[in-house]
């Protein structure tokens, strides 16, 4: 047997920070070493217990209201300062005064637009992260759940009709899947508060969830391609459907599956 797992590796294992290669090595060692398995279990229990114990102090509703009000006051102050500066310039009657006012106005509009775009990007980034977390959480919950998926079938003619009357949209399931990929099951679920078809596939020995939703104005899933907690996420959009795929399989194989499902909607 190889040497025992080091303390940093055990911690990184509990924190989900090991690379795929390190994780495979650690898992292989754990399968043969009761002592390290016990250590790993301890680290996980300690992490989980610390997470609970650390959630100790909560602000009172009054305090939250006070802090929110303070932010609002600061925002109003910033806005009023901006207004006061602009005011005298607009009242100026000579040509240079007007020119300066127009220039200031243009600069102010430009700055506002830039700030607006930055703020929108920041909000979109937060929404993007929330969506990725939710999709991953649901995928993990599905794999870990004791209750089986609601429809267990590899037959697309069984899975698709099951959603009739349960979703406010319809979708197509591809007839031919990439080599080594099979449809296993499906669930009706909700992602981002919207009704969603969750399709469960096996890609080799890996599992993948593909979430299909009615297309919305919300563009956050479109073009999503990232890693989250060791899972790969790929977003796609067709004329009527928004989709997100989540799996720990090789990103290229996940993209192949996404491509075929996306193409089936055309």
């Amino acid at each position: 047997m190889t040497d025992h797992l080091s303390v940093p590796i055990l911690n990184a294992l509990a924190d989900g920070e090991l690379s795929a290669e390190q994780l495979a090595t650690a898992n292989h060692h754990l399968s043969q070493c009761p002592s390290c398995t016990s250590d790993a279990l301890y680290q996980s229990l300690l992490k989980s217990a610390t997470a609970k114990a650390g959630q100790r102090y909560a602000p009172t509703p009054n305090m939250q209201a006070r802090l929110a009000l303070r932010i609002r006051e600061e925002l109003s102050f910033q806005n009023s300062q901006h207004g006061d500066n602009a005011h005298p310039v607009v009242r100026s009657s000579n040509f240079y005064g007007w020119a300066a006012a127009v220039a200031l106005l243009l600069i102010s509009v430009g700055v506002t637009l830039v700030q607006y775009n930055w703020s929108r990007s920041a909000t979109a980034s937060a929404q993007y992260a929330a969506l990725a977390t939710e999709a991953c959480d649901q995928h993990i919950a599905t794999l870990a759940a004791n209750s089986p998926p609601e429809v267990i079938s590899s037959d697309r003619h069984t899975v698709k009709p099951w959603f009739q009357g349960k979703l406010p949209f319809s979708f197509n399931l591809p007839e031919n899947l990439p080599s080594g990929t099979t449809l296993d099951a499906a669930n009706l679920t909700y992602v981002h508060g919207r009704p969603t078809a969750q399709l469960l596939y096996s890609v080799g020995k890996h599992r993948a969830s593909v979430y299909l939703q009615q297309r919305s104005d919300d563009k956050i899933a479109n073009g999503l391609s990232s890693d989250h907690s060791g899972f790969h996420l790929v977003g796609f959009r067709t004329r009527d459907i928004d989709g997100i795929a989540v799996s720990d399989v090789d990103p290229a194989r996940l993209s192949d599956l996404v491509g075929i499902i996306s193409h089936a909607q055309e």
Partner: protein
Amino acid sequence: MTLLAWKRMERESGSQTSPFEELALPLLPSLYNVAFWLSRSSTNAEDLVQETLLKALRGFSMFESGTNFKAWIFRILRNTYLTSLSGLAARRTVALEDELNEKCEWGPAQYPEGAIDRQTPELNLIQMGNRATLQKAMEQLPAPLLEVLLLCDVEEMKYKEIATVLEIPIGTVMSRVARARATVRRSLMTIYESSREVSR
């Protein structure tokens, strides 16, 4: 019909709330919790959070879009804490010890590898869910170890995000996480032994 567990994201009315408020207000409980742990006082924690929010709002235009807002605002909280009276006192107390230990952080582990038995006393304490005991052990951590544990375990930040918040290398984050847990473990053992002696 049984539905899987799912989380609804609270949608706030965009017309009433500024982008800063949309990002910052949901983090208030987390900011306050960490602030209280670090400053050890409700009043100090509220002051710390308020100062953090105002600094963040005034510097919001400097926030790089596409980057992690949570890590950004926690970094402001942490820097605000470090310049506060309680933060300065904590730094004076532990800085030297922390620096010295940092040098040998990748050295031998502080307990023998694989020497943990499933039925160790501290494991039993955790299994019993003795939250108060664990909180007592956490209270004994020096600030640099406590903050890394809070960000890692309570705020569920990745090592990379923690490195951004604390402005330290990822290797240092890893070693501090390991040291923090080892210290909590030793404290649990001490608390357990004390309680056994008292009950005899």
